[in-house]
């Protein structure tokens, strides 16, 4: 697949220019990153990791000190759409439609092409019945959706979203996630999302790059990351009397008792060295005729991977 964005040796240091204050902050430090076309790429990192600076350098709003951003898939600067300030990207005094008309024309879209495009997007984002409402009277979630609609006007080839679901309720966040997936599926759009909401990244991104101190600490597909950080944790639930019966024999295993909400039941998490180690455990439980009410293998979440990476316990290439 062609590369949508290629970042080579990108660096940015913010320098205060006051005579009495010459502090500087290294925001991005020799960043190297390749982002494939036609998928959602997540740029993850803690506050101050350099995500927003990176996305703004891609958008051309911040000039890098060194390095370059290129767009090999288009061999030119692609048509951009961006939501960088969330719901603040709108003219609050204008209505939904007036915002669309303004930004559409600013992007050079003809009015006769803009109307059907806007109708489709408003329908898709559930804003069709709000077109005459001033933006300031919309809920935060709707404003955020409108900001995404505005970014999609003029059919951009590359969409840059900085924390698109930050501060939204669960329902609005899920709707935006669903719509972003739909846009990639139906329009082949390339989307770069920065977020520190790991569950959002896990739900929508195929690949992620975890940033730490201005560099990419780890970059891969989420599936590969899950494999890379795989652990052999199994959760078993059984009746309490059955557990008492096998408790002594379980001592040779590394396990912990989990907080259990169901009365009369016990949940245990076993940490195995590999997946073969689970068979003797099963044989032991079978010998005691223990009835399991749950048996599952735990996958590492992106959040756990993120914490491991950003804590420095496991760096890229390790």
């Amino acid at each position, binding site marked *: 697949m062609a590369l949508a964005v290629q970042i080579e040796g990108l660096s*940015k240091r*913010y*320098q205060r*220019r006051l005579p009495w204050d010459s502090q500087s902050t290294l*925001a991005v430090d020799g960043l190297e990153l390749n982002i494939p076309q036609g998928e959602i790429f997540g740029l993850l990192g803690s506050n101050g990791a350099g995500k927003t*600076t990176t996305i*703004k350098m891609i*958008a*051309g*709003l*911040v*000039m890098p000190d060194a390095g370059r951003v290129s767009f090999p898939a288009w061999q030119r600067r692609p048509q*951009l*759409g*961006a939501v*960088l*300030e*969330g719901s*603040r*990207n*709108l*003219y*609050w*005094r*204008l*209505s939904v439609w*007036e915002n669309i*008309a*303004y*930004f559409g*024309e*600013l*992007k*050079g879209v*003809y009015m006769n092409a803009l109307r059907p495009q806007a109708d489709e997007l408003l329908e898709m984002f559930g804003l069709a019945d709000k077109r005459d409402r*001033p933006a300031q009277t919309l809920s935060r979630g709707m404003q955020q959706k409108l900001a995404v609609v*505005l970014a999609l006007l003029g059919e951009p080839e590359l969409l840059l979203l900085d924390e698109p679901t930050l501060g939204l309720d669960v329902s609005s966040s899920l709707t935006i996630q669903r719509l972003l997936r739909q846009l990639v599926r139906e329009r082949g759009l390339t989307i770069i999302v920065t977020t520190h909401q790991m569950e959002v990244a896990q739900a929508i991104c195929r690949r992620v790059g975890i940033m730490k101190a201005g560099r990419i600490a780890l970059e891969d597909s989420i599936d590969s990351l899950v494999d890379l950080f795989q652990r052999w944790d199994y959760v078993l639930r059984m009746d309490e009397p059955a557990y008492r019966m096998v408790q002594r024999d379980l001592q040779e295993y590394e396990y912990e008792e989990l907080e259990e909400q169901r009365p009369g039941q016990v949940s245990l998490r076993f940490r195995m060295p590999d997946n073969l180690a689970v068979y003797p455990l099963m044989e032991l439980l079978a010998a005691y005729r223990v009835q399991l009410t749950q048996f599952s293998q735990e996958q590492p979440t992106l959040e756990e991977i993120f914490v491991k990476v950003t804590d420095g316990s496991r760096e890229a290439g390790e």
Partner: protein
Amino acid sequence: MSTRWLKVLRAEYLRELRTALRYPMEIGTGLLVMFLFFAGIFFGARQIAGGSISTENTEMLMIGYCMWFFAIIALNAMSVDVENEARQGTLEQVFICAPAFLPVLWIRALVKLTYGFFTVLLLGLSLQLLTGRWLAFQAADILPGIVAIVLSIAGITGLGLLLGALSLVLKRVGQLSSIIQFSLFIPAFSDLSKLSPAVQGWVSHFPFTRGIMLLRSLLESESLPESYWSQCGMLLLDTLAFAIIGSLVFLAMERLAKRDGSLAHY
């Protein structure tokens, strides 16, 4: 002008109109404040002058005041606009959507000045009603008058662009803008012809000073003063200088703001 820029022009006209129509009270009260401010100056000056002001002085006062009001609109069109956009969070969005930001800003100034022109007309009419004196321009003076007004205000717009450029980097230039607004009071209301020719020569290069002097000369003389068009030529040069310097400084500050990553700061 390409169709792309015509679309931007249309978009800006409609945005300005729609915003104004949503909050007509804001425009109405703004106009009322300017009217009351003039009334204060006018009646205060009359009191000091012993109960009456000459027709000539009243006309000068009205011309100066309307031009000053128009100049404030021009100044704010560039400087306050950039500051507001950064504060509300739309500045970066406009940077991304538009082919270039500087032409958008000039188009915005044109739009604001078009609407501002009608506001100034309304203010001028209400001032004439208040003072009971009617500005008597001859038909032959209309074109030269318009040329002087347009060039003066364009020069102020260039100055406003300088402020807008500073606001990209320094962010809060409201107080500086206020100082300039009030300093424009001097050419608007003083009799600059009484200054020494050397000082007059220097001061007249300041945007809108020469324009005010030209407008006054139109009112004072029966026919078009001999040096009117040559003075207009000088005014054009001053205006072009301010517009070009304003634009160049703006481009430099835009670059600096992008280098500092402070475009969206406020």
